[in-house]
């Protein structure tokens, strides 16, 4: 295997560091928990709090939502690795904001501009640059990667329901994938438009919102249809998987660092629990899975930027490994905190839930490995 290279330029590093500073100031430790105090008598534990609009305004003023969009539409024109670094910071801070899903839409807009450029696509990009939050609707099954099957378009109007739509209750723009007589279509909708209804899906993850998007006669701006729509979407999926992986990596790194700190201070048998190898070796296992996922995620960003033939495989590999990291890190972080880790009071569950939510969304590890086996084993079979 030849040694790959990774691009990560100063602009990407700057965007990431700025975001880290901002989130550090705006989301001090415990802020998330404080806004979500549960009512133990309620049937559900934890309720939905709207995202902080001031945080979103600051994030989009920094140009982070349009990081991947070209200069021509007012974007920052940064590489995919910048978007990945931004997503990683969101996970690390468990930031309650619609930036992850909006970055996914920016990725889709970039692919649309390549495969099917149009005024409508530019208008979508400009709205993101101007501060609109956005998301993609199209998932039907529990593999929540959107597709063209859940919704359909007939005589110019959209019908059907898409589930598991990230940030749907917050997003101003909903990009719908649908099937139609003309083949697959991609349509941009305003959330407030007639015929668009969003039903909140309450989540275990306290830091994000999600919903079912029900369309009943909604009209919108057609962005692409037929073969180009399919091609643009196939390319855009690698953004989704890679950005989702990055968010998980960030959340897992927080779990690792926080649990490591705890292991240095919590004492039992007269010594910090971090001297015991059962604790040490679990922490090292967390670190190794995170690092494998992180390297694959930046490698996937690189494949996307170069539009390499293996971009789908690279992105699926990243999401598969990140999902493994989520499983291990969420569990070990709780376990290594002992009883306090099992309480609402301790912050660990906030990040553990974000990581698990990430693990379960957009296909888990085994699902992506199954798809990779098609790409890696069956493709090679044909070559033979």
């Amino acid at each position, binding site marked *: *295997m*030849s*040694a*790959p*290279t*990774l691009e*990560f330029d100063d602009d*990407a*590093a700057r965007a990431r560091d700025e975001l880290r500073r901002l989130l550090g100031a705006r989301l001090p430790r415990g802020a998330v928990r404080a806004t979500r105090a549960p009512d133990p008598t309620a049937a559900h534990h934890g309720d939905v709090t709207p995202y902080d609009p001031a945080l979103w305004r600051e994030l989009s003023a920094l140009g982070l939502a349009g990081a991947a969009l070209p200069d021509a539409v007012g974007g920052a024109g940064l590489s995919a690795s910048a978007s990945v670094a931004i997503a990683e910071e969101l996970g690390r801070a468990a930031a309650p904001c619609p930036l992850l899903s909006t970055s996914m839409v920016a990725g889709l807009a970039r692919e649309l501009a390549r495969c099917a450029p149009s005024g409508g696509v530019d208008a979508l990009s400009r709205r993101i640059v101007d501060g609109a939050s956005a998301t993609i609707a199209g998932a039907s099954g529990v593999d929540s990667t959107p597709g063209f099957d859940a919704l359909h378009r007939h005589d110019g109007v959209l019908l059907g329901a898409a589930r598991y739509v990230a940030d749907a209750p917050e997003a101003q723009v909903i990009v719908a994938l649908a099937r139609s007589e003309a083949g697959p279509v991609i349509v941009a909708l305003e959330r407030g438009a007639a015929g668009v209804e969003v039903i909140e899906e309450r989540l275990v993850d306290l830091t994000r919102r999600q919903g079912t998007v029900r369309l009943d006669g909604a009209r919108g701006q057609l962005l692409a249809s037929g073969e180009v729509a399919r091609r643009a979407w196939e390319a855009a999926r690698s953004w989704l998987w890679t950005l989702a992986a990055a968010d998980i990596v960030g959340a897992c790194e927080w779990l690792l660092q926080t649990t*490591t700190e705890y*292991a*240095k201070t919590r004492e039992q048998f007269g*010594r*910090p629990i*971090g*001297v*015991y*190898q059962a*604790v*040490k*070796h679990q*922490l*090292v296992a967390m*670190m*190794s899975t995170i*690092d*494998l*996922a*992180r*390297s*694959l995620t*930046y*490698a996937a960003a690189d494949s996307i930027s170069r539009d390499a033939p293996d971009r789908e495989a*690279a992105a699926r*590999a990243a999401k*598969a*490994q990140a999902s493994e990291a989520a499983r291990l890190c969420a569990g070990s972080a709780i376990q290594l905190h002992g009883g306090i880790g099992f309480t609402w009071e301790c912050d660990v569950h906030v990040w553990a839930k974000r990581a698990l939510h990430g693990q379960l969304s957009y296909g888990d590890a*085994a699902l992506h*490995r*199954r798809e*990779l*086996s098609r790409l*890696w*084993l069956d493709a*090679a*079979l044909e070559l*033979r």
Partner: protein
Amino acid sequence: MTDAPRDDDAERRAFATHVAEWLRAHLPTPPAFALPATPREVQTEQQHEWLRAWQRACWEAELVGCDVPREYGGHGRRGLQATASRALREAGAPFLVNLVALQMACPTILAHGTEAQKRRFVPGCLSADEIWCQGFSEPNAGSDLASVQCRASVRDGVWRVDGHKVWTTLARFADWMILLARTEPGAQKHAGLTYFLCPIKGHSGVTVRPLVKLTGELGFNEVLFDDVAVADELRLDERGRGWQVAMTTLLHERGAAESAGGGLAVPASPLDALVALARRVPRGTSPAIEDPWVRDRLVSLMLTARALAAHQARARVPALCDHPLRLPLQAKLLTTEWAQALAHLEMELQGAGGALLVAEPNAEQGGARSYLGSYGMTIAAGTSEIQRNILAERVLELPRHR
């Protein structure tokens, strides 16, 4: 941008072309006798001499010792060994037999040696004129290396060594040993060690006894020292600094630093062979490659191999590495455990055939014996457990257990 990087680039390209051309013209056809899988399994003089000649040819063609200064027998380039090592790996070239010299003795001598020592010993490491072995482990000092008991004391201006080294790879063929011995018995344990370059072959008082490994092969040895004379010019670095010098050796041995013979990387060829095996062997009534469980495990191995390649790329981008040692110190642990998982699947795919000796009719390569052999990697050069301790203490900065 200055001109310097562009010159470097041009040099790198020219060098890569030279390496590719040379390998195309000189890659040897396999000899009539079987070659061992790694330098650790060399059995016969015939294998040894053939492999030595190959390393010498590589050195003469400037594929070995690329980055070592010319006055020490190298080729005086900068940062090109990785290019040559990768080309050798990808061409499926035979391994370089003077493993201990290239990975350990040479970088350690370059870091700690006197000018005279570097001139005397480095050229022989590169050309394979002098074969090296590593005398660190003892019966009672393995993971706890700092507790070595092998004694060296000065008599009439000459060091006298008495003791017992064990698991010494290649000692049967070795001319020299990098030797860790206790010289200051009263001192604190890490401070009482000194590092020597000790003559082995034909040297009076040295006995090398081959040990048979669990695979049935020869490969490592025990080495007994009975009043062995070692001149003071053969002491590397100062008295009592043996531990620090040994740490340099281990850093290179574990692949955390790119050394004269190249760092650690997982090669693609065993994965290809494994996938080919999965196509060939049945599992139930259909080929193993169609079994979802087999597919998942194959893909997991491929995924980790890609991630390890991506680690190398990420390690070169400081902005994506929180701690400079975090990725390098994982190299040994991850690559050896990956190879072990691969050997395990390879064996399991063979079913009952995996228990056959390779010489049996219909036996495949890589059955139970190879799998068992993979434990050599997770034990040697610091066990996996020790690697995890080091990562926990050095990178995560958890408290030391002592």
